[in-house]
């Protein structure tokens, strides 16, 4: 209802929201659980868009683990082991994230972990 509509709008920058999901009964889940689907959809859309400009660079699907900290959106993108994009350097990963219109990269993890975190501007998503 009305308070739900205001939830994200009212959230100050940096607010940490932990999510639980209903599954038969309410139970604790990891922070990202409740938002995987929506972010997955969004990032897949961005990957598809990116492919139009850089054919062959990203040939495999992305698995997305997402954590939201409204109003920013922090998204961790994890690449499958068999993806050709495993050869990307962290810097190139950064270029990829910028191509998603991410506001900034907030953390670069070693390439062997195949994932990178990006901070998305909510107005860009």
């Amino acid at each position, binding site marked *: *209802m009305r308070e739900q509509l205001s939830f994200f709008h009212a959230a100050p920058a940096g607010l940490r929201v932990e999510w639980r999901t209903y599954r038969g009964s*309410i139970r604790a889940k990891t922070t990202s659980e409740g938002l995987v689907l929506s972010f997955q959809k969004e990032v897949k859309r961005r990957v598809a868009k990116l492919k139009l400009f850089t054919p062959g660079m990203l040939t495999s699907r992305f698995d997305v683990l997402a954590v939201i900290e409204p109003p920013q959106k922090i998204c961790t993108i994890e690449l499958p082991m068999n993806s050709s994009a495993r050869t990307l350097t962290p810097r190139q990963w950064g270029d990829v994230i910028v191509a998603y219109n991410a506001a900034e990269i907030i953390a670069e993890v070693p390439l062997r972990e195949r994932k990178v975190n990006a901070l998305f501007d909510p107005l860009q998503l």
Partner: protein
Amino acid sequence: MRGCTDLARVVVSFFPKRHGDRLFPLPMVLPSPCNVALVDGDFSRWHHGDNGWNIVVVDPICWPDDPPRSAHFVKTALPLLLPKTRWVEYGDANKCVTRNKEWPSLSLVAAARPAGDVIAVRHYSDEHLGNGPTRENKPHRTVKDEFIETRMHMKIRRMQPSVFTDIDAQEAWYRAQGFEFDGFVNDAMCLAWQNTSLARQFSCVWSSEVRVVPDCNLLFGQFACLFGCASLPARSHTL
């Protein structure tokens, strides 16, 4: 609740009875002095039982024609209401229950070592509370969906035209700011607040948007219309 510095639980049951009886009992909880159920005058302890709660009858006069909205204001403003309590769990009496009709306290705070300012749940339309299988592939509820649902719900409640004017204004305001209407919308029937500065800031703004209070400093005064000043702790924090 002055001694409840670590954890307090607040459940609200302002919802009017139907067919002469209240539809939902309070969720069952392990009795504690820090469990408070805010109920309206139709609640009968003898008939419904306290189920582990300390019953406080209040008059939801902030919106006399819309008691659920008064309940919403309680949920959004709890960190300001209980500024000395580290964790405050909130629940709508009719919705914040497990399938065993228990308060989901372990899930909200105790077992998970949460680090968040707020603990919330995704909308139950995705995974309905205790009724049937989960629906992993169902599209998530969006803000746009929720505006539609809210208007429908207000029609069912037969609310005044001014309510719809308010909702229209809220939607126009959000659109003007470029707010994401296709984004995920959470549920708010169960919440846990950690009393951090960010949580209080959020509580203040959120309550202002729900209550349409122009100045956050006026919020605390607004509680008087719900609870009466006598039971309130002294305001000791700065936003």
